[in-house]
C-alpha cells in the first residue's frame, strides 16, 4: 500500500536529520581539536 512509502520517507528524513546534525558535531569537534593543537604547538 501507498502508506509504506510515507513510512519510509519519514524514517529516512528522521535519520538523515540526525545524521547531518551528528556530522556537524563531529566536524566542529575536529576544528576545536585542531585549534587546541595549534595553541599547544605555538
Amino acid at each position, binding site marked *: 500500500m501507498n*502508506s509504506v512509502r510515507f*513510512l519510509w520517507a519519514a*524514517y529516512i528524513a*528522521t535519520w538523515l536529520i540526525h545524521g547531518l546534525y551528528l556530522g556537524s558535531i563531529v566536524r566542529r569537534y575536529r576544528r*576545536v581539536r585542531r585549534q587546541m593543537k595549534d595553541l599547544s604547538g605555538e
Partner: protein
Amino acid sequence: MIAGTVKRLFPILAVLTALLLAYGTYQALVVAPTERTMGDVQRIFYYHVPSAWTGFCLFFTNLIASIVYLIRKNPKADALAVSSAEVGVVFCTIVLVTGPIWARPVWGIWWTWDLRLTSTLVLWLIYVSYLVLRRFSDSAQTPVLAAVLAIFGALDVPLVYFSIWFFRTQHPQPVIGGGGSLDPRMLHVFLLNLFTFSCFGAMVCWWRCRLEWLQREVDEAEAMESLLEPTEARLSKPKVTAGGGR
C-alpha cells in the same frame, strides 16, 4: 577523577544507546502490530511522539539551565542551555517533518493551522531565534538575553502539550492519560522507543555540551594569547638608543 570516569563511560553508553536504537527500530517496524485503520504509516508514531517528548525534555533542561545561569552566572549552566536548545531544535525539526508525512495519507493534507501544529511551529521558531541570537551576537549580555528568551520560549511547551486536551484540534488525542487507548503490544514498543529516544537525546546533548565547553576553553586561550602577544613583542624588541647607538 570524575571527569576521567565520565570520559571513559561515554563510548560505552553511546554503544548501548546505538544498540537500543537499532532494537527500538526493529520493534517499531517489524514486531509492533499493524494499526487497523491507518495501516503501516501509523508506525511513524513510534518515533514522532518520542522525538516530541525528547524535544520537550531538552527545552525543559534549557529552561532550568537558563534560570540557573541568571541566578548564579555559572558558565557551565550557560553551556548546557545552548547545547540543550540546539539538540531540542533538532528533535523538534523531526517532529515537524514526520508529522506532515504522517498527516498526508491519514488526513489527506500535509498541514493545517490548528493549535497543536501551529504552537509546535512557534516553539521551533522561538528556539531557532534563540540559536541565531547565540550564534551572531557578540555582546557580553548575549547569554543573559538568551536566558530570558529561553524562559519565554519554554512557556510555549505546556501550550503545545495541553492544546489537544483543552481545544478541539485535528491532531489525535494523547494515547496515554488522555482518554485514548493503545494495544498492550503497541504500548510496549512505544515505551521502549520513548526510553530509547530519551537516552539518545541525553547522549547527544552531553556530547554537544562537551564540545561547547571545549570551544569556550579554546576561545579563552586564544583571547589570552592575543592579549599577551603585543606585550611579548614589546619585551623581545631590542632597545634602540637615541642616535642609533653610535
